[in-house]
């Protein structure tokens, strides 16, 4: 069975990120001949000496003209063992918004550094954002090893420095790999130039890294998304609560509690169009039927009587502000979307703004502007059923929406 792994990469062309992605795609045959020909032709027209694989991901006219990536680009490739979705984002600080977006669903973050330059400010920022977004696995690729004579000493030096920094962050799994994206060493196959490196190649690591236990399999959470009522003769009384399991697992017979009503019932069946299932876990999309008829609608949460999420209108969260035209300021009112629940939120307090490079907390900051991250207190019009983001990335996250422009202006991670 082939599994899905989502990875986020961030960085600039200088680090060789595009070359690395290009190599992964090319060596796994995910780049097609006509795509490569188009890229070669464009590279030649732009006067480049080598084929610029960045052109494969830079899809918009403005990006090609300016030679920059301005957005999250999604790329796909597969090996017999796994299908990979790469969310590729520019690494510069002005694109923190894009990095946060790409990182929000990632299982694995890939950070590249140039072996000659070592850890730079951008590398630390990426590590911090990976930990803030709780990406379970982090891989540091020390690239351009060919330019430092395949030096083990240099690799150790960079690895150790990065590990020291990462120790201050909330990172559970860190792997460091010496590579040469240009030549291909340790990308798909093990390097012959670095016999001292005993670990796996990057692709091998991506294929083998254990992701099954990254999800929360303990706290049963089912935000009700939609109520299925067929009103047909055959299924006259059918009432299925459709949704995506957000944590733990549900089985027929389980005693459940529904929020906000607090009523309890038992799971009668867990239905899919392919027939009932014995157990549902994240991220399965199913329909749950209960033994009792109780009033349940979209935005309600099915959980367990002895394991309930927090029910609160007062939210403490780290918020990344994503709007160019306005700022997050105390007293501002916004729309909030959390699981399947929508409400309004009032910014009660901005406790501090975090410098994403130094991790310094500025408690005097009056506002958060585009790409800034801070700790915020919100009061919502309706109670939210939430968990700490560290514990559950689905019930712990929300987005903030400008009520006039309808734009998505903020992303929040509940503390």
């Amino acid at each position, binding site marked *: *069975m*082939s*599994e*899905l792994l989502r990875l986020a990469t961030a960085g600039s062309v200088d680090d060789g990120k595009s070359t690395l992605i290009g190599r992964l795609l090319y060596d796994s045959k995910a780049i*097609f*001949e*006509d795509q490569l020909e*188009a890229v070669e032709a464009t590279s030649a027209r732009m006067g480049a000496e080598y084929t610029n694989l960045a052109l*494969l*991901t*830079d*899809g*918009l*006219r403005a990006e*090609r003209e300016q030679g920059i990536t301005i957005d*999250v*680009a*999604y790329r*796909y490739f*597969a090996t017999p063992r796994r*299908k990979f*979705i790469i969310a590729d984002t520019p690494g510069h600080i002005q694109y923190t918004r*894009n990095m*946060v*977006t790409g990182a*929000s*669903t990632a299982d694995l973050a890939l950070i590249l550094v140039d072996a000659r330059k070592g850890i730079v400010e951008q590398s630390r920022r990426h590590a911090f954002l990976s930990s803030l977004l709780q990406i379970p696995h982090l891989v540091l690729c020390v690239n351009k090893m060919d330019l430092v004579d395949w030096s083990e000493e240099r690799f150790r030096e960079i690895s150790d420095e990065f590990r020291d920094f990462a120790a201050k962050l909330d990172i559970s799994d860190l792997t460091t790999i010496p590579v040469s994206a240009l030549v291909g060493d340790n990308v798909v196959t093990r390097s012959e130039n670095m016999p001292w490196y005993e670990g796996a190649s990057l692709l091998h690591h991506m294929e083998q890294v254990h992701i*099954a*236990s990254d999800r929360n*399999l303990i706290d049963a959470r089912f935000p009700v998304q*939609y109520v*299925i009522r*067929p*009103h*047909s003769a055959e*299924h006259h009384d*059918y009432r*299925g609560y*459709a949704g*995506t399991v957000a944590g733990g697992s549900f089985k027929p017979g389980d005693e459940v509690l529904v929020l906000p009503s607090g009523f309890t019932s038992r799971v009668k069946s867990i*239905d*899919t*169009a*392919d027939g009932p299932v014995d157990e549902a*876990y994240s*991220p*399965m*999309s199913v*329909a749950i039927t209960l033994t009792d008829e109780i009033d349940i609608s*979209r935005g309600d949460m099915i959980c367990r009587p002895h394991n309930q999420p927090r029910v609160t209108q007062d939210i403490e969260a780290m918020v990344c502000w*994503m709007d160019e035209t306005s700022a997050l300021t105390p007293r501002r009112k916004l729309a909030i*979307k959390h699981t399947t629940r929508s409400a309004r939120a009032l910014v009660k307090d901005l406790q501090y703004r975090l410098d994403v490079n130094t991790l310094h907390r500025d408690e005097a900051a009056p506002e958060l502007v585009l790409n800034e991250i801070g700790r915020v207190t919100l009061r919502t019009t309706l109670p939210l059923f939430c968990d700490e983001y560290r514990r559950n*990335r*689905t019930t712990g*996250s*929300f*987005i903030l*929406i400008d009520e006039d422009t*309808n734009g*998505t202006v903020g992303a929040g991670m509940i503390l």
Partner: protein
Amino acid sequence: MPAPSPAPSYQLSHLRSLEAEAIHIIREVAAEFERPVLLFSGGKDSAVMLHIARKAFWPAKLPFAVMHIDTGHNYDEVLAFRDAEVEKHGLRLVVASVPDALAAGKVKEAAGQGATRNRIQTPVLLEAIEENEFDAVFGGARRDEEKARAKERVFSFRDEFGQWDPKNQRPELWSLYNGRHHRGEHIRVFPLSNWTELDIWQYIGADEVSLPALYFAHEREVVQRDGMWIGVTRHITLGDDEVVETRTVRFRTIGDATGTGAVESTAATIEQVIDEVAATRLTERGATRADDRISEAGMEDRKREGYF
């Protein structure tokens, strides 16, 4: 006490993960929008999208209509397939017709041999959205198809002119989709964004999704144009120097019959098609779509105007 069952792996296959994501997206739209519609061309991607949408609401019927933008340049098999699906699943079908729009003088046919109706579908689509007051429009587009698509959101906002603004897209995080819009604006929704052509075929195999027979190898009268095999139908005018040949072909994509080429293939079963797709070295659009060869930014430009 019963013997303990082996510990479940709690891991979905990549196809079932993609399916679960698509179901989540489709249900989200059904819950939050007033008048969604699903674009159904009879092609493989829209067939898979329709299949998943039906699964999302089982045992209830699809809670929204399907819409076909009829270019008038169809293979007969595709129309027959469309009508059979509508009949079999009790769907509500809306047809927005390019020939009707041409007859009413609302759009003009592009000139020249090989001119397709690709571009004039856009105003017809936009008018149908406006007339029917659709506020969410499901499309079967995939990010792996094309570079501009690779940057498009799952929930893609369109202003009152139906335009896409690639530089001003809403950030899209986790599985929290922002479908808010003002009256007259709408959201294009792409539940298959993260699927590749191979995923589509593997899923068609796994779920036995029905498709028009055109997707499998068959003998057909074709003519070579611009390196592609174009089916000889009543919709094309043969040039003096063009030679009609009978070849064993299949279609990788199905669009306007005048601009969508077939590829030579002997893949007659789903398994054979999956093997062929896994081994192919050309993208489906590069191999078979004249409309996408217009320029490097061809798709981006059409999407800005409101194309699928």
